[in-house]
């Protein structure tokens, strides 16, 4: 049994979506951890926490379409000494139940693990009412909360397992499944709070999270082949606590940073990175890529991502745009003696 506790390979991950792996991992963890209980708000099938529910019916509770109560109950269960995994769509976890997540779970610093699905544009056909494009900026501001956005199914599995060894509230935001595989290996060093360098590079850094990590890696390949650019790609799976060191390293070594997220460009990954850059006092060409502060029409998520420039093509275009930008004030091209 590998160190991480994962019993599937990337090949299994290919066959399972992010949500399915989550359900499967949780069901496995349930064996070793009798204190795990599962909660759903009528989305057990959609969020796949139902897999856990099928295996442990006495430890799974559905609350119907009542998210606020679900989180209050989760807090109560945590107070009783259990470890609740709560699942619903990220739009509802972060907005409908916002106060309950903040006041019941975070303020009391309880061991509640929130697996929020359908983040970003991933429930594209649901339209704006079901898009979660402000969730990261909302949840990021809750003290005590850890915020993780896994890039693919395998990373989701790692995140769920990491929940168990991380005390206090954790919010894991995943897609709808069908997000492309990013990792080639099941085992890699996954640690909440530590970014993963997907690809080294020296000309510019793309910091991505969630489904956009795959696109950033693709974009880097294209830029390398076509433009002969050396693009560093960082998977910032943990938005909070953010990996400051990785950002500073990218800043000083490449001096150009782009952030990409399936989220409004206000308040999420881009803002978190910008905070680090601005406070460092060091010059850097910087650009956030995300949904440009608007509500999005319905559509397939891949199309929506393309429309708003957060897919491979969008990242390629943005990198080319930023590469033309000067951040040096030194325009003196005289050779030194």
């Amino acid at each position, binding site marked *: 049994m590998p160190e991480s506790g994962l019993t599937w390979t990337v090949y299994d991950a290919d066959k399972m979506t992010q949500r399915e792996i989550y359900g499967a991992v949780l069901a496995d963890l349930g064996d070793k951890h009798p204190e795990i209980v599962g909660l759903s708000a009528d989305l057990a099938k959609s969020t796949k926490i139902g897999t856990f529910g099928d295996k442990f019916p006495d430890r799974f509770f559905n609350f119907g379409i009542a998210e606020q109560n679900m989180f209050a109950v989760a807090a109560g269960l945590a107070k009783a000494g259990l470890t609740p995994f709560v699942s619903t769509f990220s739009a509802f976890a972060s907005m409908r139940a916002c106060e309950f997540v903040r006041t019941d779970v975070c303020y009391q610093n309880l061991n509640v693990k929130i697996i929020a699905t359908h983040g970003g544009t991933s429930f594209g056909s649901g339209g704006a009412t079901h898009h979660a494009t402000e969730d990261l900026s909302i949840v990021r501001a809750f003290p005590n909360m850890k915020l993780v956005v896994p890039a693919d199914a395998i990373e989701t599995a790692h995140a769920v397992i990491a929940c168990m060894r991380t005390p206090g509230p954790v919010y894991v935001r995943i897609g709808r499944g069908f997000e492309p595989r990013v990792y080639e290996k099941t085992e890699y060093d996954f640690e909440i709070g530590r970014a993963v360098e997907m690809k080294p590079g*020296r*000309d*510019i850094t793309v910091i991505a999270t969630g489904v956009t990590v795959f696109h950033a890696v693709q974009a880097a390949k294209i830029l390398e082949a076509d433009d*002969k*650019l*050396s693009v560093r790609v960082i998977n910032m799976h943990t938005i909070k606590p953010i990996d400051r060191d990785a950002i500073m390293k990218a800043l*000083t*070594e*490449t*001096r150009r940073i782009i952030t990409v997220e399936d989220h409004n460009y206000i308040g999420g990954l881009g803002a978190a990175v910008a905070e680090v850059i601005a406070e460092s006092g060091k*010059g850097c060409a910087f650009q956030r890529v995300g949904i440009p502060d608007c509500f999005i029409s319905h559509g397939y998520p891949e199309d929506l991502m393309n429309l708003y420039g957060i897919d491979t093509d969008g990242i390629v275009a943005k990198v080319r745009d930023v*590469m033309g930008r000067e951040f*040096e004030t030194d325009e*003196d*091209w*005289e*050779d*030194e*003696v």
Partner: protein
Amino acid sequence: MATEQELLAARIICRAVLPVIKVMIEDNPKLGRKFQGVTAKVQFVAEDPAGPVGAYLQFTDGAFEVVQGLAEDPDLVFRFANVAKMIGMFAGKPVLPSLGPLLKGLVTKPGLLINVFGVLLGMKLLMPTAKPKTPEMARLKVKMTLYMVSTALSQLNKGGDPDMIKWTEKQPERIYQWSVKDTDIACYLKIKAGQTKAGRGEYTRRKPFVHMIFRDIDAALAVLSNSVDTVSAIGMGLVENDGSPEYGGKIGDFMLKIAGMLS
């Protein structure tokens, strides 16, 4: 009429080779003393139908700089019949500039000619075949060579070498760094969208795109004198190429080109 290549070589001599005299004077105290308090202009000029090509050394109370073009009232003039001959002299070929104007210098500033010859002899250190006799001289040679090369590459671009231009115009801002481990010898070439700038020391604003790190002075000597080719040198650990191997190789090629132009 000088060819494009000759004019380019002359440009490199005037703008990359001559300035390295500053290093010699600053780092070699014996030589530095000779020019203490000296104020003089030493002109190097080659005749050409399109106009004279050259630069002059300006000593101002001991301070040294190279000024491009013709001086108003030089104390000493090294005049060459054509550009090729000027290149020849700096390549170590047996070339004699015309001596006429030299006599003026002998009269007004005795000792200047001798000291300048001393400098020119010292410049021979830059030649690939020159083997430094002391560790001090070895260090000096490496520093002078690297400074010269970095500037020469920049001048190759500014001077219009088509291959160099093609290579620099597509690149985003990148730093090509040279340094010798455990010494303060370091210089760089900054490239961006067709522009180039040679710089001294270690570039700190970002990580160099290519960093050629010489293991020590001897290793640097071996590589820079081309007694070892770069690939073998890397294999032997004499030099490390930290960064893009393709671009590191390419700049090595340009360095060889410069060596070829000056020989």
